[in-house]
């Protein structure tokens, strides 16, 4: 089993290779295999050309990739990643995602990710468990989880030359569950977004209404999460809060 903690735990005063070597020794990887494994893993995470650079010169994304490689040093069957992209910029995050996808495709490794980013879970995971206050609230594939909630695709639209009873007419459309007008922007909740848009277009043509803008937003895992856990804020003082001493080592 390999574990990558949430915090960046690679040693900034050591090089990438030295960090890998320390962990290889801690995991008891035989001396003869160490060099090749480290070379291959650093190559996999695209850090081979930085192998002798001190980790303190690395970006957050590079450190995370190094730590993922480090977590694989002993060829585990299961890899736990605790919030692997927390604190990373969008480019680094995408990079880490690509790496995790490549790992998944390349090996038989089971990867378990904990994350607060629902889009991350949606992009990376085959199965998602939603845990609320330590209790498993839902467990399924992303698509099935989305289908499991009373479903709403939301169509947003703005119209010109709409008649006075336009909202009432929209409510009669097939697949539409509710319609609200917020400052001229009409929100149409539907259990089948594409079908609702087709019906909407037919209606606007027949009534001579001009469509200025239209968009459809599918159900997201954020909606799923909120559905299963509720809207209450989860504020809690964290035990053993970490002290920031990074400035002392700059």
């Amino acid at each position, binding site marked *: 089993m390999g574990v990558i903690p949430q915090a960046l735990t690679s040693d900034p*005063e*050591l090089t990438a290779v030295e960090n890998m070597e320390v962990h290889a020794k801690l995991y008891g990887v035989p001396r003869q295999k160490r060099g090749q494994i480290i070379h291959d893993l650093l190559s996999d995470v695209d850090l081979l050309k930085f192998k002798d650079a001190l980790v303190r010169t690395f970006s957050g994304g590079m450190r995370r990739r190094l730590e993922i490689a*480090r977590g694989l040093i002993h060829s585990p069957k299961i890899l736990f990643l605790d919030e692997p992209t927390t604190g990373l910029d969008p480019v680094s995050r995408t990079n880490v995602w690509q790496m995790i996808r490549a790992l998944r495709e390349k090996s038989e490794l089971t990867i378990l990710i904990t994350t607060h980013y629902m889009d991350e879970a949606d992009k990376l995971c085959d199965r998602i468990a939603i845990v609320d206050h330590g209790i498993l609230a839902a467990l399924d594939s992303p698509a099935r989880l989305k289908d499991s909630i009373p479903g709403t695709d939301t169509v947003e639209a703005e119209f010109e030359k709409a008649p006075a009873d336009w909202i009432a007419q929209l409510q009669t459309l097939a697949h539409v569950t509710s319609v609200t007008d917020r400052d001229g922007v009409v929100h149409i909740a539907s259990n089948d977004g594409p079908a609702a848009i087709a019906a909407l277009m037919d209606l606007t043509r027949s009534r001579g209404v001009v469509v200025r803008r239209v968009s459809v937003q599918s159900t997201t895992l954020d909606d799923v999460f909120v559905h299963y856990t509720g809207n209450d804020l989860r504020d809690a003082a964290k035990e053993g809060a*970490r002290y920031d*001493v990074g400035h002392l080592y700059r």
Partner: protein
Amino acid sequence: MNFGRTWALIERDLRKFFRSPALMMTSMIFPLMQLIVLGYAFGGKVTGVLVAFVDVDHSAESQKVREMFNGIAAGPRTFHVIDYNSVQKADEDLRNGYVRAVIYVPQDFSQRFYHRDRPRIAFMQDNTDQFISSAVLERVQEMVEQLNAPDVTPRLANQVQLNTVEIYPYIDYIKYLLAGSIALSIFVVAMIGGGITFIDDKARGLHEGYLVTPIKKTELVAGLIGAGTIKGLMAGMVLTVIGGMIAGIPRIWDPVRLFYLAIVVTAAAIAMMSFMFLLMVRVDDPLVPRATFGVLNTLLFFPSGAVYPIQAFPRWLRWISIIDPFTYTVHALRNLTLKDTGIGGIYVDVLVLLGISAVMIAGCLALFKRQL
């Protein structure tokens, strides 16, 4: 226990140590600077103390006293004598700090001397500085003894004479202080490497990285203490050699003595490192080791007899000396550097240091929490 895992941690710490010249220099420079500054500041003899001489007798005998002062001013130069005409003026200058002492030869000094009627010289001194006043008083008493010496030595002496044999050559204070400075260099490494870096690594989450591996508590503690001991040994031995050369310890390169010194330094490094880990094992806040550095330095260094003999301490302070690993380190190092005693003069101290280490390590293992 897997020594491979323990060695991995030792190797990591040593790499970091060698990669940080600031850390290496700090652990050497602070004790070396202290050795040089304190060694020369405290080791010197008192010279040039301003002494007022008031002679209102103006006789051949009072002139003899004056000449004795002149002799000291020219020889050991403890005093610089200034003649005063008025005892009131001399007293005023003494109280205002312009002179340190006043010798007053009264008007009837010679008269009493010839009548054998207890001739007296008044000696007034500023006793706010005990060190200077005792040095001046010692010289003045020597002079008085010379004045009292009979002109003709009795043929059959009936006074007891003390023949003093000093079994070692004269020891400069800087040599005396060297043992304390070596112990201090080990302590600085323990404090920085064992205290500050340990807590900083913990605060930066680096320990979390190790705790997710199969490493055991004993291996982790052994690795951290082992690394600190090696760093302490290196710092201690470098300071022994450089400090020994600065202080002028003869035959500092003698390999047998260096070997014994290495044994003492190693035992001291284990004791101080394990002591430091015991103190820091449950600490998370990086400010704590930094804040306690000065307190621990005072509490461990000074009661050890490094700068002043333990025999001069009050009883409560002697108790601190007894439980202080510095005490045994300083004693053993002083036996080797000043007396070249060999193993006979150090083995008790080494055993005590190892005993202290065993207790501290047991404490570390009991208190160390192997959890994320």
